């Protein structure tokens, strides 16, 4: 859990509080499934739209083989995600963890869970209320790139932050 130590350090340095008042976000989407954000969108040019989050902030981070450690690049993306979520408290997010196809189904589910949790921990450390964030692992079940080469595997080893309606409970 190397990244945990880094996160702790980060909190100390930045003085970011992990505590926010969930009460002000009102009732949440509770138990919304993956893809619940599909109906959300809005103009990509509107910085408050989930589409802007997806395209401009960046909704995904990538991982090395069999790893759930966040790279500097991933952390930069997540800093942007955290800021957007703090600026748009009317939304929640489901973080989907994924793996490439080079592993067994069950191990990849556990690996995807690790990746999603790493992202959630980071966002919480940057001040996003944990109650607004849920995690789900798809293991190797939902590849976005379907070739059987590293160029595709690299895209599939990902955690995607899917914006959903509601400000958490």
């Amino acid at each position: 859990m190397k990244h945990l130590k880094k996160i702790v350090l980060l909190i100390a340095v930045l003085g970011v509080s992990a505590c926010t008042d969930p009460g002000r976000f009102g009732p949440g989407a509770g138990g919304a499934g993956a893809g619940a954000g599909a109906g959300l969108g809005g103009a990509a040019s509107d910085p408050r739209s989930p589409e802007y989050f997806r395209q401009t902030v960046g909704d995904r981070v990538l991982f090395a083989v069999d790893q759930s450690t966040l790279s500097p690049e991933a952390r930069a993306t997540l800093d942007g995600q955290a800021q957007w979520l703090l600026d748009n408290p009317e939304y929640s997010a489901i973080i989907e963890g994924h793996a490439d196809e080079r592993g067994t189904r069950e191990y990849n589910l556990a690996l995807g869970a690790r990746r999603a949790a790493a992202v959630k921990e980071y966002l919480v450390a940057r001040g996003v209320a944990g109650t607004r964030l849920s995690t789900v692992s798809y293991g190797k079940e939902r590849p976005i790139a379907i070739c059987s080469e590293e160029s595709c595997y690299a895209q599939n080893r990902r955690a995607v932050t899917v914006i959903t309606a509601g400000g958490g409970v």
Partner: protein
Amino acid sequence: MSIKRILPLLVLVLAGLGALFSGPLTAQERPGPLRIIIDEGVIEPLPFAVPDFIAENAAAREYAARITRIVAADLQSTGLFREIPKEAFISSVTSFDAPVQFGDWKAINAQALITGAVSVSGRRLTVKFRLYDVFSGAPLGKGLQFAGTTASWRRMGHKVADAVYSRITGEGPYFDSRVAFIAESGPKNARVKRLAIMDYDGANVQYLTDGRALVLAPRFSPAGDRLLYTSYESGFPRVYLLDLGSLRRRALDEQPGTMSFAPRFSPDGRTVLLSLSVGGNTDIYSLDLATGNRRRLTSAPSIEIAPSFSPDGRQIVFTSDRSGSSQLYIMPAGGGEPRRISRGKGRYNTPVWSPRGDLIAFTKQNKGRFHIGVMQIDGTEERLLTSSFLDEGPTWAPNGRVIMFTRETAGAGGTSALYTVDTSGRNLRRVPMKGAASDPAWSPLLK
């Protein structure tokens, strides 16, 4: 979408003919006893003849030949037997009780002869058969009779084949069994997966879910009456218990914010082991089905998954990556200090204890290849049975002699199919099915 409960079963009636074996024969007359020892090296398939079973009444006509074909196909599929085509026959069998012309069968080198007869009365179908050791000119075991419904005619064929297989090999039967699996369709990045069940040989496929929710990895109860599987119908992976009789199902573990998967029953069917992810950390839990009591069996920051009980229920084999890569460990059934059993290079996953208790089957990933393998329960004598781009998820035949698994091909058009292989590594075969499939779970022998 109902499963037809097949409740025929098995009236074991002896159809006479006691004598087990016969007088001594010279080596010239007799190449050896009618016996296949599976553990011995290369096996020359044993030639057998199975003339079409006699239809004893008009209603039996549409079943008799088809049941005969099931018997022949089952035996051939083992790789241990070779059918002599009927064009080679000298004798024809016109009556179940007519004396066998052993000379005619010996002349075409049939070592085993199977004769049978079918009768149908209403919806009731009865099959009787006899197995002969041609070179000794005597029956091998008593004649047997099986009765069921006409709808279960294929099972009657499997039962005859099981009896023949068991008598000649001395091994337990396995043809009269089913396989639960995941039926796959659609492109690789939008795969539709449905829970399904079929006969062990790919026939009688029935779908148990409609494909709206992603489903994974069914597992049979020890009695074969229930399935565990993982479904995303809540939006999150959760383990469900499905009763195959009523088709009623329920989620087993509904802790918000967690994910559960990789379930397996205990040998007594009362407890379920599963893997539960909480805050990104996956550990193994046991769940009492009657009380709902949950007990945590591992608590490490590493991934602990894929538990499988020993047949006596005293130990659990599972996967952990605590060493830095996935390896196999065994711990007491109540939890406790695990001991690592896998020692080779590569990563080991999905361990499954053999129903005989002697071996553990697993998936191994090494140097970009995937293998199905077996090892002794102390981790020694590892043998890899298969090798491909992606083989995974072994499941044992009820007799512990054959393993079924998923093989997936590479590339954008990659698809999954089910394969079987002997524990010897021989007889790799694709299960004949129309569509793509993955995650097989072999049932116990049907009752």
